[in-house]
């Protein structure tokens, strides 16, 4: 997992406490998982406010349904799965109103530019922005699989658990996602020599 200060045992202990009705034990869980969930949602959805809302909704659902978490999968896989589903729903809602929406909020991931290597940073940022744009053009299930696998550094097995699909289906989805992303990048002119 890309981000994480707590190990699995600590998380499992906190989850067990929340399941027993100890609500304050959910606070460290929120602090631990808000950054990775936001990163995922931000790349799944086009707007930062949408992403924040999705993370909030994901935590609400997780808290409400935490009694159903049976410990057979790792907690973060389960949580990512909820977040992905919330993002699917939000993406569908947004798609219905796409024409009336404001231009995509692309500026949030901006990084401070130093005086040195400014041009390099600018180029790097341009590539990243282009990649983000391409990523948003592939189907949401494939996008989710790629983000979980490469951004959140989940194993293929954990991706399968998070997306509630079989191992083969997860492999297939990642592979097809890469192919789709490659095609979109090619169409966007990202391929080719410098």
């Amino acid at each position, binding site marked *: 997992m890309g981000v994480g200060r707590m190990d699995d045992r600590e998380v499992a202990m906190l989850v067990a406490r929340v399941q027993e009705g100890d609500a304050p034990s959910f606070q460290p869980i929120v602090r631990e998982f808000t950054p990775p969930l936001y990163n995922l949602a931000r790349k799944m959805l086009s707007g930062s406010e949408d992403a924040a809302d999705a993370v*909030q909704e994901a935590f609400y659902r997780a808290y409400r349904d935490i009694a159903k978490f049976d410990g057979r999968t790792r907690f973060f896989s389960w949580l990512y799965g909820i977040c992905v589903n919330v993002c699917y729903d939000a993406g569908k809602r947004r798609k219905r109103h796409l024409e009336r929406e404001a231009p995509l909020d692309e500026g949030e991931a901006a990084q401070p530019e130093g005086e040195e290597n400014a041009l390099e940073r600018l180029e790097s940022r341009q*590539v990243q922005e282009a990649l983000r744009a391409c990523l948003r053009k592939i189907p949401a299930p494939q996008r989710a699989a790629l983000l979980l696998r490469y951004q959140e550094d989940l194993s293929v097995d954990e991706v399968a658990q998070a997306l509630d699909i079989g191992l083969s289906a997860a492999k297939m989805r990642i592979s097809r996602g890469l192919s789709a992303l490659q095609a979109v990048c090619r169409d966007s002119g990202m391929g080719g020599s410098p």
Partner: protein
Amino acid sequence: MKERVDFTSDPSLLEEALREMARDAPPAGLEARILEGIAAIPAPRRSIWSRFAMAFQTPAATWAYRLAALILLGAILVNLRDLVALRTPPDVPEGPESLASLVPPTAATCPSDGCGFLVTFQFRADEAASVSVAGTFNDWDPARAPMVRGENGEWRLQLILPPGKYEYQYVIDGRRFVPDPEALERQSDGYGGENAVLRLKRCSSV
């Protein structure tokens, strides 16, 4: 990603680019907003049933629980079988029924005194030096029911037996047990063989 890369020629570059994409940090105050919202939701709590079900899913305990559950299930099934056996109606139902149709050719006639049936055991064994009947009515002791040889190797014996269900076999030359080949009913003797079954039903008038 310091320079433009050709994502279309090498998929591994694309994977690397995805890994290296800058992570988006959550806006300030998001955690507080989430926690505030959660405080308004009633604390979740597992139901007793849910806890019970979860206990079976704990990886460490899974096999132990499954084994215990299987043993418990087996015990319940055995007890159920015993219960059913206890509740099964007795083997000798009441009512006037034809005995002749139940046990040919070993024939039984309904006694006039109502105390017992005159049962005739018949068995053909040309080469036998002796034939007896052993069954539940004589504690499986062939010596207590020797048959008498008749014509054409037909062995015969008449006994008076009270109503009931009996299991029996013919014993040839004192050592070879053979269930009545013409019995209407047989059942396992519990040792891989079979016993002939004779049912003598109570008759109200003869």
